């Protein structure tokens, strides 16, 4: 994670999300959850940004990509954990894996948000309110 501004944005989003899920209104809680999951998505995406502009596209086999330097391999003894590398090694790639991870996480949070919105609608029908303090029929 290289950019200070990006880190501050992510932390502010986490703050807003945490504030919202502590509200009493169901809808605000759901919005808070969405904001939290987007903050996490940004966090994941930010772990794959190295200072660089090359596109990590592999043409040919794994071996030739290793030979040409598109894929770099682990060198645990010297602290190189591919693809996490320090600036010294002089690579200029954006890690593509984290973008795939974020895509998966977005799809999952979409499904859960859809389910939870329908649930909130049905709760509103049953209880005639969206105030969480009035939903106390179960005592935990």
């Amino acid at each position, binding site marked *: 994670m290289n950019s200070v501004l990006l880190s501050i944005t992510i932390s502010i989003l986490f703050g807003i999300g945490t504030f919202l899920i502590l509200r009493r209104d*169901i809808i605000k809680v759901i919005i808070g959850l969405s904001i939290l999951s987007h903050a996490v998505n940004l*966090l994941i995406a930010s*772990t794959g940004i190295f200072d660089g502009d090359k596109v990590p596209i592999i043409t040919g*086999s794994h071996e030739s990509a290793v030979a040409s330097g598109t894929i770099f391999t682990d060198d*645990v003894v010297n*602290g190189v954990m*591919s693809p996490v590398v320090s600036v010294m090694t002089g690579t200029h790639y954006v890690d593509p894996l984290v973008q795939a991870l974020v895509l998966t996480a977005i799809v999952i949070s979409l499904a859960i948000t859809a*389910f939870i919105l329908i649930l909130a609608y049905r*709760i509103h029908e049953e209880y005639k309110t969206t105030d969480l303090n009035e939903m106390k029929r179960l005592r935990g």
Partner: protein
Amino acid sequence: MIDVMQHLPILLVAIPILMAAVMIMLRSHPKLQNILNVTVSIVLLLMSIQLLFHVWDNGIQVYEVGEWGKYGILLVADLLGSSMVLLSSGISLMALIYSLDYIQEHSLSSTYHSLFNLMIAGLNGTFLTGDLFNMFVFFEILLLSSCALVVSQGKGGHTKTSDKMEATFKYLILNMIGSIVMLIAVASLYATLGTLNMADIAVKISALSQSGTLPWHLFMIAPLFIIVFGNKAAIFPMHYWLPDVHPSAPSPISAMLSGVMIKVGVYGVLRVCFLIFPDALFLLKPMIIFLALATIIVGAISAIGQNDVKRLLAYSSISQVGYIFLGIGMGTALTITASLVYLVNHAIAKSMLFLTSGSIIHHAGTRDMTKMGGMIQSAPLMSSAFLIGAMSISGLPPMGGFIAKFMLFDAGILDQYYIPVAIALLFAVLTLFYMFRAWLRMFWGEERDFVEHGEYRAQNTSLYVSIPIILLAAAVIALGLYAEPLIVLSQAITDQLLDPQPYIDAVLTRGVR
């Protein structure tokens, strides 16, 4: 001929997902659906038995999805994973047979079968995956399908729909926050180590700690995983959703949730603590012991005050999970073996108790134990099954629970954890008290006032209801009388957990295309 043995891990995940789709298409043929789903569940059970024997004979099996080696998704069947799959397939087959007669016909044929299959896919996937992010994905499949199953309605409708929704909302929000925490932990691990494969993470962390350059934030990531899996397993500060959700679900789903689903959390803690973070164990062990003791105390004390039979069983689940975590927290070979034995015994006994309680509720027409009494005359099968379960949970010989509790306390004393064992022993007496108080209130004594509360209904002894209960009760007794195979298996699992080198070797010797 294709070698089926080699493809068992992916088949155990893929077949339930396929069946979920097929069940939706067959929704206008309820009979065919029932027969097909039970057949497939039996096949899955046989396959999981086969997988366990295969792993036992030939060592850890690794299945590559795609040919990307450690960069892709790997399914790893080691002894822990494959025995958890066997446990969950067995219990889910029983719950499925039970639910054919328990769930409302309309709900059963439209959504129940396919969601149940998705839940099995999520469970098997979580137990078999070798990749942290993949585990997160299977957790979400598990979460969504179980949420939808909690809302489904049993025959008779003894739980109000609004109660189910309130419970599901609580469950979903808390688990959603749990999965956000898991993503944070996974992202931080990836940013540090550049891999998501658990074996690869283990290699890199041990290399870093040997060279003395272990970053300090890894010690923060390890407790994050305890939060995630603790939330799944309902240990102390995250336990309050469980006594709402498990009683609100229809009984076969309660059996799945209490029997298998909370064990997912235990499985996750075992995997993460002993494979990925052996260096942070000095920090995690006291934490887990403390939380486990708090869980035991809170669960047992809350269970005493309950009048609702399913709520009592749910609080008892919390307390018993505390015992399992106590063994893990002590963290020696003997105690982990004991808690694995405990896990299996609790899973079988508690799912049997939940299935029995479903029939009891149907028989009495209420969930309130103060409105029951003297049912031993009218429901002899249910009362004897409940007695067997209660004896096992409270640890009386000759049931399986006795072996489990005895091994746990014995191992704890041998490893000189005197104070935790003393506290656990004290609350084991409370377990005896609340389980037998429930049994006495429901089955012993005077029959209830029939003028005020109405007559008992006839006991439902159809084969769908009685076969699962009888089989599970037989398993409880069998595990008590002939416990050696389970103990040998648990010892082998513990050896694999404490020495992760074979696991790492099996995963990392894979080539990349």
